[in-house]
């Protein structure tokens, strides 16, 4: 799977100015400041936007966890079945994300994190390649650990492309794409130094090693 030199303008502004990266097997993490174009890039890969130039090569079937969605007052089962499919398959994935027995609950009454997990279950059930927009936002530490564990195990059988501000995901990633100024730099996770991150976000970021994990500190 790859993206080659895509350019894309929205509302008269060129958001992506020749973005290229390769999404091999495993998890590709897209990092970049607010408004950098991460969601735009995922939408272009999903076929919502047609780029002004460049190519997008995707290998389906695709799943998509959107960062924003409509707060529909349907049962969770109807949300999972939307677009068609079998409930047993979706219920299995609902179990996997820790929401066993949620089928009859009304989607709009769930908490922000629960809604995210329902849509994550849907995306995992539907895609061999799964595009994830902010997969860990709004999750408590336990659910975040659950999702990170899930992604690191499932990335052997599925391909993930995740956009996030969660720097902890660097430890789960096989490749990191830094989006800045409308262009992309692709690095291996160990090449994502504190300097690269500080430059990407325009803030001073330092990290430390603790039990083999990278821990981040932000100066303000």
């Amino acid at each position, binding site marked *: 799977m790859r993206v080659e030199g895509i350019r894309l303008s929205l509302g008269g502004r060129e958001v992506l100015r020749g973005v290229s990266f390769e999404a091999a097997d495993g998890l590709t993490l897209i990092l970049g400041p607010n408004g950098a174009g991460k969601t735009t890039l*995922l*939408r272009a890969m*999903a*076929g*919502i936007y047609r780029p002004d130039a460049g190519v997008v090569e995707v290998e*389906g*079937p*695709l*799943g*998509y966890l*959107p960062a924003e*969605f*409509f707060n*529909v*007052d*349907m*049962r969770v089962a*109807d*949300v999972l*079945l*939307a*677009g*068609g499919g079998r409930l047993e398959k979706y219920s299995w994935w609902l179990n996997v994300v820790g929401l066993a027995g949620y089928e009859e609950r*009304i989607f*709009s*009454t769930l908490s922000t994190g629960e809604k995210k997990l329902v*849509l994550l279950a*849907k*995306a995992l059930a*539907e*895609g061999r390649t799964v*595009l994830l*927009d902010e997969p860990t936002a709004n999750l408590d530490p336990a659910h975040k650990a659950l999702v990170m564990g899930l992604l690191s195990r499932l990335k052997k059988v599925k391909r993930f492309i995740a956009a996030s501000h969660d720097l902890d995901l660097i430890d789960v990633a096989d490749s990191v794409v830094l989006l800045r100024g409308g262009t992309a730099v692709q690095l291996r996770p160990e090449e994502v130094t504190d300097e690269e991150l500080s430059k990407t976000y325009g803030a001073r970021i330092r990290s430390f090693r603790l039990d083999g994990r990278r821990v981040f500190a932000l100066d303000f």
Partner: protein
Amino acid sequence: MDPYIAGTSSGAALGAVAAYLAASALGNAYLFFAYQAALAFALALAASALTVTFGRGNIYATVIAGVAISYLFSALTILALSYLARANPQLPPITFWLFGYLTYVDYKYDAVLAAAAAAVVGLAYLEARRIDLVAISDEISSVRGIRPSRYRLAWLIGISLATALVVAKVGVIGFVGFMVPHIARILLKNGSATALVPASAALGALTLTLSAAVSRGALGFEVPVTAITSLIAVPVMVLALSHARRGD
């Protein structure tokens, strides 16, 4: 979206009246039968398209645009009918077009209306899971092979066509399309199209039949159907709003 609130039915009414205008200008009384539904469809579509364009994704803007568009088309309908009324006293009265009368329906046209209604309801039921998906997320729709903007446009055209067929024959009947799905939603506690489509069809038929019975004699004199459906609609709107505020 109720075709009454979206301005669709007012557009259809103007189209139907425009067909009379054209027929009378050309002195050909038979012409309008052929073109009435087509003109009603064209203007219904124009009204829906204008509403959606001005509303551009924002629900409040869409409702306000719909009200404005429906007043605009109603005003044009009144102008056209006032002009026509003197020359053609046999025409249905202005109140027919603006507020709806079921009295003028004949059996030949009934079959067409029944077929159109069955087609729309049947298609909506078959498409319910896809309608749900488009209601949830453009992104998920797109990866599942649905182009959400095209899909919404296709439904806009289909519903404008059905509305045009109805309005050309019975005038503008308001609020049924708005209040019935709301009642169904509250009763079922489920906004999925799989539940709402059959429930709304059944409840809509019941509501309109009862409203028609009341409008045609229960008060001792005949009133337009919209007066009755609107009278029922207000308490339902209040209920729906307080329901929405409670957020359950």
